[in-house]
């Protein structure tokens, strides 16, 4: 092909994938490729860059359809291994939220753990109650199900894959327990949670190739981006490279639970906080033009992030300056006040790397084609806070 082309299309890239000729690199490999060969050669030769993350994604859960029993029941309240699932849908549909805790075991066991048991092929205890109606006379159900028994079981996660996040510290003089893990008193440690240079939305910071309908790696299976994620906040302050310096874009994702694996979907019990679910997500980014070459060559030192003091328990926590991911990954950062603080990640870089490599393999094998989004994620939607006490207009 001609080295002068400045634009590539999805169709051309997919054509090459089908022929087994596409050059696919992980986001880490892309950094080295561009360093060694320059942007022009990268545009001419690289077709796809695979990005990934494996982190705690609380806003996750599964839609399940149990099928009808005889006599039938219109499930009003439903528990799976004593974890309540939301049944305010049709007769035998529920939504099982990942963070819902067991009524017996509390935060030791929750929706995410039930999802893991289903994925592992284990039997799950299903209990349901109902008021009983003419067409659905049954009032109680107590049985066991497996993933295979269900009609549909799909993850539908309203907010995953945060584009960057905060670094959490604690300035107070007592230890606090947060969704960012335990934070020791007097800046004893700092937690951060993004996969940095491997992270999907940091490799396409203005969502030029990411949107509704994008085919992705989700939990070990092929999935899709369904919508912009809840709290999607593209207008967050950005650095010179266009990278938002805190939590910004998000995505809602969907995929068939029956094809996923416990390798990439894991329940978590966060001490004195609650249940969460680690979800593995991989997003392929087509190298359509020079702009995408530059975005996907982003590296940890280009990614700045804001340090936030979590000790106050308030919505707008005070901030303490910025650091970049290279500094975070080194294991210590120095705060504005001169304090040296040990850092630790919450998301697994090791797993993110595995996912990026796995997705690369799928594409190389011709099993996974790129899908042009039907609509890109919004770059201007506004992020609102909840205002209390407003009088309704009658």
């Amino acid at each position, binding site marked *: 092909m001609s080295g002068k082309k400045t634009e590539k299309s999805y169709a051309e890239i997919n054509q090459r994938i089908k022929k087994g000729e596409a050059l696919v690199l992980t986001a880490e490999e892309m950094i080295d490729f561009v360093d060694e060969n320059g942007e022009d050669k990268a545009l001419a030769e690289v077709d796809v860059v695979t990005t990934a993350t494996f982190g705690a994604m609380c806003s996750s859960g599964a839609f399940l359809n149990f099928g009808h029993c005889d006599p039938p029941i219109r499930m009003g309240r439903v528990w799976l291994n004593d974890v309540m699932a939301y049944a305010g849908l049709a007769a035998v549909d529920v939504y099982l939220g990942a963070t819902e805790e067991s009524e017996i075991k509390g935060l030791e066991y929750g929706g995410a753990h039930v999802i893991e048991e289903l994925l592992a092929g284990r039997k799950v205890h299903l209990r349901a109650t109902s008021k009983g109606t003419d067409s659905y006379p049954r009032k109680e159900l107590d049985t066991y199900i497996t993933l295979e028994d269900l009609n549909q079981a799909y993850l539908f996660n309203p907010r995953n894959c945060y584009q960057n996040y905060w670094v959490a510290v604690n300035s107070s003089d007592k230890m606090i327990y947060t969704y960012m893990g335990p934070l020791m008193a007097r800046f004893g440690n700092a937690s951060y949670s993004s996969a940095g240079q491997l992270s999907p939305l940091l490799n396409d910071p203005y969502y030029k190739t990411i949107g509704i309908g994008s085919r992705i790696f989700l939990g070990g299976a092929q999935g899709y981006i369904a919508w912009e994620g809840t709290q999607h906040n593209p207008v967050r302050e950005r650095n010179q490279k266009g990278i938002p310096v805190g939590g910004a874009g998000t995505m809602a994702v969907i995929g068939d639970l029956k094809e996923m694996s416990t390798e990439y979907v*894991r329940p978590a019990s966060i001490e004195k906080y609650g249940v969460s679910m680690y979800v593995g997500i991989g997003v392929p980014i087509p190298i359509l033009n020079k702009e995408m070459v530059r975005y996907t060559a982003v590296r940890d030192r280009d990614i700045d992030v804001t340090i936030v003091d979590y000790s106050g328990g308030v919505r707008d926590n005070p901030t303490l300056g910025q650091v970049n991911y290279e500094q975070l990954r080194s294991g210590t950062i120095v705060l504005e006040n001169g304090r040296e603080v040990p850092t*630790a*990640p*919450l998301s*697994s870089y090791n797993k993110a790397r595995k996912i990026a490599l796995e997705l690369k393999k799928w594409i190389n094998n011709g099993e996974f084609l790129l899908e042009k989004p039907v609509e890109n994620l919004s770059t201007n939607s506004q992020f609102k806070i909840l205002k209390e006490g407003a009088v309704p207009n009658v």
Partner: protein
Amino acid sequence: MCKKRLKLVFGPEIVGKPVTYNLIKKYDVIINVFQARVLPDEEGHMVLDIRGKNEESIKKSIKYLQSEGVMVDFLEKSISYNQDRCINCGACTGVCRSGALLMDQESWELIVDQDKCLLCEMCLSACSMKALSLELG
């Protein structure tokens, strides 16, 4: 270096004696106190790690404690690491001050060095995968 975790119970009659002071002074051991409840005229409890040059120095210090009338219980515990549950996130490394838990900066896998562990138990609450636990023996 040799380390044992002990639980000490003092009768009210010895609460006033400088037992731990003598221990450090005479037997050249390092002690790290995790819990202590020592009040005048009450039975005292203490959980501590005692570290000495070798088994012998620890044995001697325990003998001394017993000779003073302290009841000594061994807490034979260690941190156990379940690799299958571990996702190599690294969350535990941020709270481990002893260097027993570190991330390999190349592979981003967790490296566990039991010998450095001080049994402070901080990592137990940092691991949301329950990959680290406190085991007997």
